């Protein structure tokens, strides 16, 4: 019978993405609830030393799939290798982060394993009938609780929502031999815009600008650099060509849940709120006291962002 929780971690160039810690921590919590064990898989090339990092979060068994064919993420190679590992382990539950990569991987894996998949899950609870998974629908206006029949069950969890908890275990580390198999797509180029740009969905703090910037994001960029934050934008700022689509927060852009979201000159259309309303703290700066963003925000300032933000920057600089 299928047993155990299996977490697929995500790393890039030898560094774990934050979602990996969230996924393993959640895996530990569920393994305890289900009274079972936790396995974490790490895929990549030259990753032999990475297992130590993940032990802290409570996996009993760590599988390191180290192969040059896994150096770049491809749907095919990762699905092939994981299918073998999962069939060998026969887990009841598989947890993957719903990152860009994880969303791609989980759908393909679900079809290959003939498993039920819940995408973009924000909460998991145990009931008499088994696990119940909560996911937002209709732009976050409604939450749905869903159940998955059969095993394995696959859940892709939304980044930045679930807690990271350290529960060190003495884990066994296995290095299974892997077969990468046929890869039908070839990555031949990566266009990296800026090396140090913070991924929006993983950022702790986001400073976002909208139509109210009039296209001038300089103060927003300055403030975000000072706070170590990522820069986001509303759809209208993207439609105007002021920011790239990848900066867009909202229903048809990124869904983010940072600790702090600072919305500057963003009115707060449904489109935008759908992407950021689960942020832990929202501060809105807007000239219009009637702007809908104030209904979602925790704190609001009615005022001109071009006057206020330079003052904030000055105040922070004066502190140090």
């Amino acid at each position, binding site marked *: 019978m299928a047993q155990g929780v299996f977490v697929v971690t995500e790393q890039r160039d030898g560094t774990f993405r934050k979602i990996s810690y969230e996924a393993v921590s959640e895996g530990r919590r569920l393994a305890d609830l289900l009274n079972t064990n936790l396995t974490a898989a790490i895929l990549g090339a030259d990753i032999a030393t990475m297992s130590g990092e993940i032990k802290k979060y409570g996996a009993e068994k760590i599988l390191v799939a180290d192969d040059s064919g896994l150096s770049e993420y491809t749907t*095919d190679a990762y699905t092939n290798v994981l299918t073998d590992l999962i069939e060998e382990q026969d887990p009841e539950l598989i947890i993957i982060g719903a*990152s*860009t*990569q994880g969303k*791609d991987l*989980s*759908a*393909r894996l679900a*079809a*290959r394993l003939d*498993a*039920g*998949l*819940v995408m973009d899950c924000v909460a998991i609870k145990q009931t008499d009938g088994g696990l119940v998974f909560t996911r*937002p*629908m*209709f*732009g*976050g*206006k*409604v*939450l*749905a*609780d869903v*159940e998955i*029949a*059969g095993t394995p069950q696959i859940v892709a969890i939304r980044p930045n929502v679930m807690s990271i908890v350290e529960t060190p275990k003495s884990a066994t580390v296995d290095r299974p031999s892997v077969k990468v198999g046929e890869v*039908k*797509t070839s*990555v*031949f*180029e*990566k*266009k990296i*815009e800026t090396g140090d740009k913070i*991924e929006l969905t993983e950022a702790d*703090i986001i400073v976002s600008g909208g139509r109210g910037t009039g296209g001038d994001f300089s103060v927003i960029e300055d403030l975000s650099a000072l*706070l*170590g934050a990522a820069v986001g934008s509303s759809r209208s700022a993207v439609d105007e060509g002021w920011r*790239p*689509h990848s900066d*867009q927060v909202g*229903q*048809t852009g990124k869904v983010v849940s940072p*600790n*702090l979201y600072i919305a500057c000159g963003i009115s707060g259309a449904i489109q935008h709120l*759908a992407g950021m309303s689960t942020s832990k*703290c*929202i501060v*809105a700066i807007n000239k219009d*006291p009637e702007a809908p963003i104030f*209904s979602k925000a*925790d*704190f*609001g*300032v009615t005022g001109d962002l071009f006057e*206020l933000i330079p003052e*904030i920057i000055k105040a*922070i600089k004066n*502190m140090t």
Partner: protein
Amino acid sequence: MEILVCVKRVPDTAENEIEVNKDGSDIERDDLVYSINEWDNYAVEEAIQIRDKVGGSVTVVSVGGEEAEEIIRREMAMGADKGVHLSDQAFEESDGKGLVRILQAAIEKGSYDLILTGVQADDGAGQVGGMLAAMLDWPFASLVNHIEVINDRTIKVGREIAAGNQEMNEIDLPCVLSIQTGINEPRYVGIRGIRKVASVEIPVFGASDIGLSPDLVGKSGATISRVDYFVPDLGEGAEILEGDTGEILEKLIEILQSKGGIK
């Protein structure tokens, strides 16, 4: 190039207040404004642009009741050549995988080089593209924000990856791509365009027409079941910071400090 685009009719979340019905089993569907799923519309526009460059045809397919036809027709008004409507009582209450099985059966009946889907739908699970590719055993790329046809066997696609970066891939046809919004600017559909296709016959196929066993789809074939809908807690609205600039700044700095913005 023969291109198939999978489209879905969804409640327009920007236009509607979405409410949960009394027993939490569904949303209130009366009086909802429906439209084409936004991602799918970008996919249709992209398909039309590819056809205009390299020739071939664009077919739009949708699974759903009678109402799905209006969406297919709208996309034909946009410029798609053909429409296919997959409709059967047995399809009702299908989960993501059921939907994929229906599409897969229809695709295997036809002959397509390229299948496009939207990255996700507002009322869906964001898994159709990836699952469809796996079940067809075709190559797949998700979050596609650029397509270039190299020849009739290979295309080059750009994918959105983390931190605003892009990855360029070469993929052999036939393949499945899930299209990201922002890849193009979908054209406006005017009333004249709608009129032009108003009387075009759109074929309707059920389970037996596409050789699909009804128990693989619908409720009986579903592994995902919805047990409850509820509305998330809405906050109480913002605490508006009052006072002179100094006082507001002081409060803001306090918030930034407590949230880890200032170390």
